[in-house]
């Protein structure tokens, strides 16, 4: 046999054509709902309510009315603010605790490491359950406080393990050398580990950040007053429970019906825009986390 390539069979060439078509179809189906929402949000309210079927471009006359109403709504704006507070404060706790926990688990010469590792891993597979967790937050007096969304979410054990894999991959010799120089563990973590694992730390920022941005359930359990609600909980109340009561003051009754649909679309755009805009640039970090997570130590 010579090294010459076997020509693709006719069957394979047909397959290739269908493969490209099918994958294009998948991409379109994935993207279209999002595209539809964006187009609908810029459309004319009356035209939209009469329209049926697919939407290629906004229905004229274009209108920013829905966005105006969304941005004028005090509740939505406070939701944005609360989400950003939770996100920033949460990330501080996330990064510090995940880094120290992961560093500890990556140490090789510590007696109680395995015991602690088992205790931590166990929590991934067994939990007290919804009700005891809820009662715990109550007994800690965290109800109706943003801390109830920050503290219990301070460590995600799966993320902790990703971080640990990264630390464990740092050559032992570097750690040993620092130890011989008399460096404390804190100093090794700060000056050796973290500078070497910046990329994984970026993965952590993204994973925790997206989780905070998208979280709604705990907020619905623990928060009672609407002025503390994060964006996603407000979205849920407006979009799914259809309680447009939060929109009063912005809409009178007729308007409410007329614009309800539009406002929903605009809300979805406004709440998802930060992630969708950042996503293409950060994609490689996101996927990196999956790879590290898959390679277990």
């Amino acid at each position, binding site marked *: 046999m010579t090294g010459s390539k*076997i020509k693709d069979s006719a069957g394979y060439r047909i397959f290739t054509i269908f*493969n490209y078509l*099918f*994958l294009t179809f*998948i991409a379109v189906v*994935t993207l279209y*709902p*999002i595209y*539809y*929402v964006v187009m609908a949000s810029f459309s004319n309210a009356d035209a939209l309510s009469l329209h049926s079927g697919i*939407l290629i471009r906004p229905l004229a006359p274009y209108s920013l009315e829905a966005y105006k109403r969304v941005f004028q709504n005090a509740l939505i704006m406070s939701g944005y603010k609360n989400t950003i507070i939770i996100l920033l404060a949460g990330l501080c706790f996330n990064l510090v*605790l995940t880094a*120290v926990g992961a*560093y*500890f688990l990556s140490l*090789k010469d510590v*007696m*109680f490491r395995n015991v*602690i590792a088992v205790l*931590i891993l166990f*929590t991934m*597979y*067994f939990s*007290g*359950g*919804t*009700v*005891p*967790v*809820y*009662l*715990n937050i109550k007994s*800690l007096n965290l109800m109706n406080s943003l801390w109830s969304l920050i503290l219990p979410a*301070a*460590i995600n054990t799966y993320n902790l393990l990703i971080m640990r894999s990264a630390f464990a991959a740092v050559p032992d010799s570097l750690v040993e050398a620092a130890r011989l120089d008399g460096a*404390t*563990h*804190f100093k090794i973590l700060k000056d050796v580990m973290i500078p070497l694992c910046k990329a994984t730390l970026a993965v952590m920022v993204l994973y925790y950040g*997206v989780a905070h*941005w*998208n979280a*709604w*359930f705990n907020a619905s359990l623990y928060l009672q007053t609407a002025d503390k609600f994060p964006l*996603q909980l407000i*979205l*849920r109340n407006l*979009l*799914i429970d259809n309680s447009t009561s939060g929109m009063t003051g912005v809409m009178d009754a007729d308007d409410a019906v007329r614009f309800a*649909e539009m406002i*929903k679309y605009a809300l*979805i755009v406004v*709440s*998802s825009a930060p992630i969708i805009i950042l996503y*293409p640039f950060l*994609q490689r970090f*996101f*996927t990196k986390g*999956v790879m590290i997570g*898959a390679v277990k*130590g």
Partner: protein
Amino acid sequence: MKKNSSNKNNKSGESLGVRVKKDLKRNYSAYLLVLPVLVFYGVFAYKPMYGAIIAFKDFSPRLGILDSPWTDLYGLKHFLSFFQSYYFGRILKNTLVISFSTLIFSFPAPIILALLLNEVRNRRFKKAVQTISYLPHFISLVVVCSLITMFTSHNGMIVDFLSVFGFETNMDLLNNKKLFVPIYVISDIWQKIGWDSIIYIAALAGIDQEQYEAARIDGANKWKQMLHVTLPGIAGTIILLFILRIGQIMNVGHEKIILLYNDGILETADVISSFVYRRGILESNWSFSAAVGLFNSSINFLLVILANKISKKFSGTGLW
């Protein structure tokens, strides 16, 4: 986790007490660092586990966990009343139906996507499809579920689209109890197909190119290469993930269910976790729903252990 704690001190034959002392002296700064992490797990993971004993009590907030009285029937009252209730069969069935449906349809989908992408030679096209397919993973569940609700409403995009094929309805699809599972599963595929394919794409990239070369020299066409090189190359990953997925079979998360269901379709949509949420949080049946939750998490735990054992036996790797 590896069991590699090669404790140097072991060799010297010192007593445990001396070794602990030496370790603490040497590594106190490490223990100091990990202390807040231990406090976190203690307060937010282990304390609620202790709190789960209310499943065996008649919990009243006034008395607290410790002083609330144990129930009749040796503390098992709530468990027995759950097993005897009408809801037991219903939510167990729904949990399994939804779980197996996602297993049958959502599990293979990312594998197929990865295999198809693997045959694409145009790198740009491949990259574009990948990037687009990951996107739904980052869209919040609230938004995903509101899209589902809007599109499946009687005047929504999907009903409009279906009417082209002669399917007419003036009912919101989510009010039809027969359609809940299909809607749940199809949207699940939409959300996960791309992101879940990453791991398979990585496994495919790890297949030694020389194997393809060898197969070609042996005269294998593309189909045979797929059958004899590609599939065996990712079989280990598939088996591992499949077994781990089986370990989650009784675990259907409550968030998506709660966002999608309504009182009219509980018959097919209510699962164990959403039942616990409704009874416990909304109706304040603390002890009863803690019992249901504990029953569920115990089964989940056993299944994970079992899955891990099987996985280790077949593929040599497991969760720990």
